[in-house]
């Protein structure tokens, strides 16, 4: 067509697509932010009202928005839509270039659309996020290790707590669906790529773009409100709060885009013969997770837009004096906040359910119950948000119904336990780090789940709410269950993603140090919570000394285990044992393509004739 003719060899320079990369994005983002900042400083009218910060808030939010637009333009996110508007869609060569054909390492720094590249990009950014969040956690624990009053200034301490919370939440949200949902899942369902490859690249680069406002906010007073950023505390917080708001808005867009993309891919692009009964359970986990994000994150986005308007434009959505209510914020926040914990948890458990038959050499126990459990949790999770608000005074009469929905979740959650235990039962146990992670998950999630039942009970919550007990509880679910599953997934799919085996000894060492450290840390935290230590405090009564010392000790153990794991990732990636084609002898499609996985995965699309769990010998 015309595009082919209009690309003569003599054309001077490369096309715009080829010029754009991460560094042009950084440059354009920075320039846009500075220009808009100068312009706003020049032209925005001075404040006349008594309210502090309003002008500064406007300037900050405008420059952060400019950063976002500049960065996304610089990375090349707008080239496709713009060309489409002009009636000249991308040519085949250009699409191949975007997919990263024959580009080596450079494709990881571009707006590359290949799902495998994006999977690796996610894996790396998650390690960075956990690195930063982990350092912040160690600062918190070190500060709390000594008795009354730490060495960190309260303002800085509050900001560390808030930043640790929000980036770890974001990190755990993307820790399974990001790397494995992108790299593995499309191959697992026998697709050549995602349904919308460019949107896939968009959702990844939005996360990179979102990191900058959060970092920026650290220099503007930090996020001193905790990760929940309740109003009216957030409206009196320093300018760093705008960094939080911008971070959440961009991340919410990324999650919505990824959710639409992954859901479409799974619904429309499964291989021939892959009926819903033959679709691997991990795929269900990923879809449930991102599909839950679809109702949850728009609400989060909206709550932060309203927060920004309260700060910058003197609206009063959350300001009681102006007719608003802090309870509105709490409702919006937790309508996102409770589905969000299952966004984290479900894919991690589903990944372990995927591995369980492989490492026990028997079929998955009760696939249908697994699907029903995932669906049941997803459905109920959007109806339980106000259990975070039992004691807010918002609507005491609603405590009873919300207690009902919350405790009902224990039924589908129990189904997931049944599937895992049932699969382990009478299998041939192949001892690997992922196998042991199943046991670790059962242990941790049992503790996280049962403590969750106490917390869901209104009278018990009247004692436990807002104490360290709650902090320990949700770390048991998100780290003890969620991260355990994610780390197992890393070891399990490492050969498929890097062509090398994860060092066996290191995976075991890291596993035991992390699990032991984790249980020491958070059982210690349960004790101080029961004894009456509130959350998010930088000093505490001397009666809590022992428990806090134990927790801090455990935290250092977790850190050492995670460092061993990091060393394992780097050394195995660089010089690990070359992996055979299907090292675990698994029956899902991602093991049929070999390594390196060719662009577009399959030369001939596979046809599926049975479910992927046909392990074991048929009984005669």
């Amino acid at each position, binding site marked *: 067509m015309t595009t082919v003719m209009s690309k003569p060899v003599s054309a001077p320079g490369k096309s715009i697509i080829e010029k754009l990369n991460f560094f042009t994005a950084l440059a354009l983002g920075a320039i846009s932010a500075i220009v808009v900042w100068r312009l706003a400083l020049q032209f925005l009218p001075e404040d006349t009202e008594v309210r502090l910060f309003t002008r500064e808030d406007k300037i900050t939010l405008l420059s952060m928005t400019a950063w976002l637009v500049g960065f996304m333009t610089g990375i090349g996110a707008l080239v496709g839509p713009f060309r489409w508007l002009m009636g000249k869609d991308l040519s085949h060569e250009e699409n191949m270039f975007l997919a990263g054909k024959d580009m080596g390492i450079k494709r990881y720094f571009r707006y590359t659309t290949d799902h495998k590249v994006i999977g690796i990009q996610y894996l790396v950014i998650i390690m960075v996020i956990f690195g930063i969040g982990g350092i912040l956690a160690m600062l918190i624990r070190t500060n709390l290790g000594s008795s009354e009053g730490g060495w960190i200034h*309260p303002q800085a301490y*509050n900001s560390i707590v808030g930043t640790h919370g929000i980036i770890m939440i974001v990190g755990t949200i993307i820790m399974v669906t990001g790397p494995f949902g992108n790299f593995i899942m499309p191959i697992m369902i026998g697709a050549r790529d995602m349904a919308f490859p460019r949107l896939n690249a968009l959702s990844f680069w939005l996360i990179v773009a979102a990191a900058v406002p959060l970092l920026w906010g650290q220099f503007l007073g930090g996020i001193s409100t*905790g990760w*929940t950023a*309740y109003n*009216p505390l957030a409206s*009196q917080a320093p300018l760093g709060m705008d960094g939080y708001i911008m971070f959440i808005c961009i991340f919410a867009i990324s999650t919505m885009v990824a959710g639409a993309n992954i859901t479409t891919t799974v619904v429309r692009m499964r291989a021939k013969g892959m009926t819903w009964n033959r679709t691997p359970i991990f795929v269900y986990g990923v879809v449930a997770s991102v599909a839950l994000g679809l109702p949850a994150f728009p609400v989060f986005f909206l709550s932060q837009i309203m927060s920004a308007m309260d700060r910058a434009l003197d609206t009063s959505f959350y300001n*009681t*004096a102006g007719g608003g*209510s802090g*309870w509105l914020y709490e409702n919006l926040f937790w309508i996102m906040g409770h589905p969000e914990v299952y966004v984290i948890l479900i894919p991690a458990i589903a990944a372990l359910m995927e591995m369980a038959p492989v490492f*026990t050499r*028997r079929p998955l126990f*009760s696939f*249908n119950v697994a699907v029903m459990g995932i669906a049941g949790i997803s459905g109920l999770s959007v109806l339980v948000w106000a259990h975070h608000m039992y*004691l*807010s*005074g918002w609507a*005491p009469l609603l*405590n*009873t119904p919300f*207690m009902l929905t919350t*405790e*009902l979740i*224990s*039924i589908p959650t*129990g189904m997931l336990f*049944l599937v895992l*235990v049932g699969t*382990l*039962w*009478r*299998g*041939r*146990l*192949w001892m690997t780090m992922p196998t042991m992670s199943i*046991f670790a998950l059962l242990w941790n999630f*049992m503790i996280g789940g*049962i403590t969750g039942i*106490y917390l869901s*009970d209104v*009278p*018990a919550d*009247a*004692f436990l*709410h*807002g104490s360290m007990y709650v902090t320990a509880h949700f770390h048991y679910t998100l780290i003890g269950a969620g991260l355990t599953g994610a780390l197992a997934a890393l070891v399990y799919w490492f050969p498929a993603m890097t062509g090398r085996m994860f060092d*066996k000894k290191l995976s075991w060492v890291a596993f035991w140090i992390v699990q032991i450290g984790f249980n020491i840390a958070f059982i210690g935290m349960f*004790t101080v919570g*029961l*004894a009456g230590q*509130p*959350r*998010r405090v930088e000093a*505490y*009564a001397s009666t809590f000394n022992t428990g806090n010392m134990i927790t801090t000790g455990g935290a250092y153990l977790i850190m050492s285990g995670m460092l061993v794991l990091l060393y394992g990732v780097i050394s195995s990636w660089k010089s690990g044992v070359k992996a055979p084609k299907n090292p675990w002898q698994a029956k899902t499609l991602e093991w049929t393509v070999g390594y390196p996985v060719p662009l577009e995965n399959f030369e001939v699309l596979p046809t599926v004739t049975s479910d992927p769990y046909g*392990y074991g*010998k048929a*009984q*005669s």
Partner: protein
Amino acid sequence: MTDVMTPKAPQWWKKPDVKKTAILWVVCTAVIGYVGAEFHVRNMVSPASETMSGVISLMRVFTWAAAPVAGLVAAMCLTVLTSKRHYGDNPPAEADHQVSNSPRATALWIVVSALLCLFALVGGFIVIQKDSSSLFDKSALQVNVTGQQWLWNFDYENGARSEDLYLPVNKPVVFHITSVDVKHSFWVVQMGIKMDANPGYTTEAAVTPNKIGVFDVRCTELCGLLHAYMQTKVHVVSQADYDAWLSIHVQIEKGA
């Protein structure tokens, strides 16, 4: 192995792994129930109200109710872990069966978990009902609680105001809680009650202290810089001491 080959396999409850699991189940349930309940009860503060005693016994009951389920999972895991394990880089032989479902086990599991859930719900509902009716006790002492960054103020019916809370023992009290700036949360630790203090709204909480002594009030909602230090004491005293304290305090207020 041989079980499979014989035309008539032994009944399921006679299989060795089932027997082992059954014994372990009893042991695990006892251990988990006892350790779990004691862990909670011993770490919790000693109660200074009926409400708090209720919370403690609720934790004990819930732990024992959850113990059989946790015990079963633990027993099955232990049975699996102590059976033959395969180490090595290549997979072990395939399992000798292809069981991918068991309608009986599934149905039993779901029914039992539903019953336990119902038990927890009913238990909770009864306590809620009792707690919320005490909010409307007309004879109760009324105290206004006001949170502000970063201290608590208590206003009594006759106009006295204090930063330490004073209460008479064995007399129901209703707190009317609000805030003048951001959200706080009013937690009387040893009495097991908590309620958020919201700017512009008043919320209620009720309790009857039943022990003379000094107890803790802590803020449990992050409220800015000095949140950790937003604490005060509750002095629960006899009715006579309370009246004496109140009359002196009223005079101080009027004098000032």
